[in-house]
């Protein structure tokens, strides 16, 4: 899997993951959103712009603004928009933990997709208030989180636990208890506390294993790629040794190729309206 590390490969995987995720969500947007009334959309944490570009392509009346803290991701996203000859999509590098440089009541929809904790629990309220500020009074917010589910591979399950431990050690935990470091199940509560209304959620599975499932395999490879980034912090927090980590990664890469590989993650999609 050496080619996993090349940028082009990552982009291909991200695109594949995006399509697989959208297939599982049965669309770009939750059904409560009336797409024909959408004019201005803000995509926070937009990565390589896959969602933003596809939304703009699907709905010619929509303007999309994408924000991400990673300048490389913004470059990829801009390139994607240029290739698609889209004028209606803009991408900006932005620090999401400080006030957004956007005017009040600008957007009909704020969309966020993340597979990482993204914010510390005490940063979420501030961020959600910013989302509320830039939303029009009738605007809708949609937060989507990927959370890890069970798998048949011991190595995969071990990583699920290690990641949870790491994120909690880094202060992303919603409590000191295990399994509380992913924000998805806390979205509705946080939306309510930020003063949003009519909050609800939808939870859907994404299959990573089984036979004839290239989309799921792409998601899993992207998960592995992101896992490599946790090597140093995991060692630093003394949760695992370097050798153990490498052996575990090798095992995880091997397990996905086995015919009996079965694993899943879930998409938690929460939505609420400003007014």
């Amino acid at each position: 899997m050496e080619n996993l590390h090349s940028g082009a490969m990552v982009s291909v995987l991200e695109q594949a993951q995006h399509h697989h995720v959208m297939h599982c969500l049965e669309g770009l947007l939750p059904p409560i959103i009336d797409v024909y009334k959408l004019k201005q959309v803000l995509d926070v944490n937009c990565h390589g712009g896959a969602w933003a570009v596809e939304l703009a392509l699907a709905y010619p009346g929509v303007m999309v603004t994408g924000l991400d803290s990673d300048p490389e991701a913004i470059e990829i996203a801009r390139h994607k928009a240029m290739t698609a000859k889209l004028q209606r999509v803009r991408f900006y590098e932005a620090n999401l933990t400080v006030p957004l440089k956007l005017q009040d009541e600008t957007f009909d929809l704020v969309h966020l997709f993340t597979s990482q904790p993204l914010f510390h629990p005490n940063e979420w309220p501030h961020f959600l208030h910013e989302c509320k500020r830039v939303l029009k009074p009738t605007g809708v917010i949609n937060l989507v989180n990927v959370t890890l589910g069970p798998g048949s591979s011991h190595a995969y399950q071990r990583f699920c636990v290690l990641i949870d431990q790491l994120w909690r050690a880094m202060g992303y935990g919603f409590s000191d208890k295990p399994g509380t470091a992913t924000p998805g199940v806390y979205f509705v509560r946080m939306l309510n506390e930020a003063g949003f209304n009519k909050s609800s959620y939808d939870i859907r599975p994404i299959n990573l294993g089984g036979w004839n499932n290239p989309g799921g395999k792409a998601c899993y490879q992207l998960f592995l790629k992101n896992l490599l980034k946790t090597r140093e912090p995991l060692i630093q927090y003394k949760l695992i040794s370097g050798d153990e980590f490498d052996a575990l990664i090798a095992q995880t890469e091997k397990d996905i190729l086995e015919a009996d590989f079965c694993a899943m993650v879930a998409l938690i999609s929460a939505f609420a309206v400003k007014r």
Partner: protein
Amino acid sequence: MMQSSHPMQQSSGNAASFPPTLPRIQVSQSDTANLNTLLHQYLLRAQEGRLYPEIIPVVEMECALDMGCGAGEWIFDMAKNHPKLRIYGVDVDEMPLHRATQRRNAKGLCQIQLRHIDITQPLPVPDSFFDFVHMRRCTRSIAPTQWPGVIAECIRVLKPEGWLVMAELELCQISSPAMMAIQSVMTQARAKYGNSMHIRGEMTGMAPRLYGMLLQAQMDNVAYDLHTVDLGFMGGHTARLFLTEIIRYAWRMRPMVVEQQMMSSEGFDELIKQASSELLAPDLCGWGVLITAYGKRGNT
């Protein structure tokens, strides 16, 4: 099962009716009677109302077996949809089986046969007898090491081209930290007793392994379906009942947890109390996954 006495247990007066502090999720009388029905419907709703995977041609079948049938909820639904299908239900637990028998007799359903059988032992059934063997939520009564033997028995009693379906539930995440802690302690306790597929006991891990075990058993057309189970406020009253049932189960595991010195009894009681109150949150959100693995017996 419960040896140690506990103040809350005494105050409730009856050990069997325990959940220590579930103030407003108290299970009412009618709920207790309907608990099995409600939980069955809850899982069925998660499975989009399908009693079995679509690929299985039940209309052409004569005879089915439900392993670990409990109070027979799945069987009665099957009987309703397929009046000509003969359905056998077996379970090691006599109480629910007795209820199922009463219900069968009251309805005069001759197509249903119920037997008290330990499903971890060889079945007193000839080879190639059933067209369809169904199992759901049996992890509590089958130890991980017993699974391959149980599957081999299911395959033995299946006719060639008969189908085996196994559905198991895995609780994943919920916005109650105490509930997450209980889950973690319980799986670790099970692991210490050798009742977990996962060495470190981080998850019971049976559900995602069924697919591999059917492949291992050389069945044909092996596949699996995934359905998320809503544990949060949108899952409604039944989701709460379901979570209450899990807390009761955790409570029954208490002596084991304490004996294994994984937690003090006070610490565990505190967790249960905390979880019971956290589960009342109006914005509760959580999910589990039902993994349904299935395969067809080969022609040989």
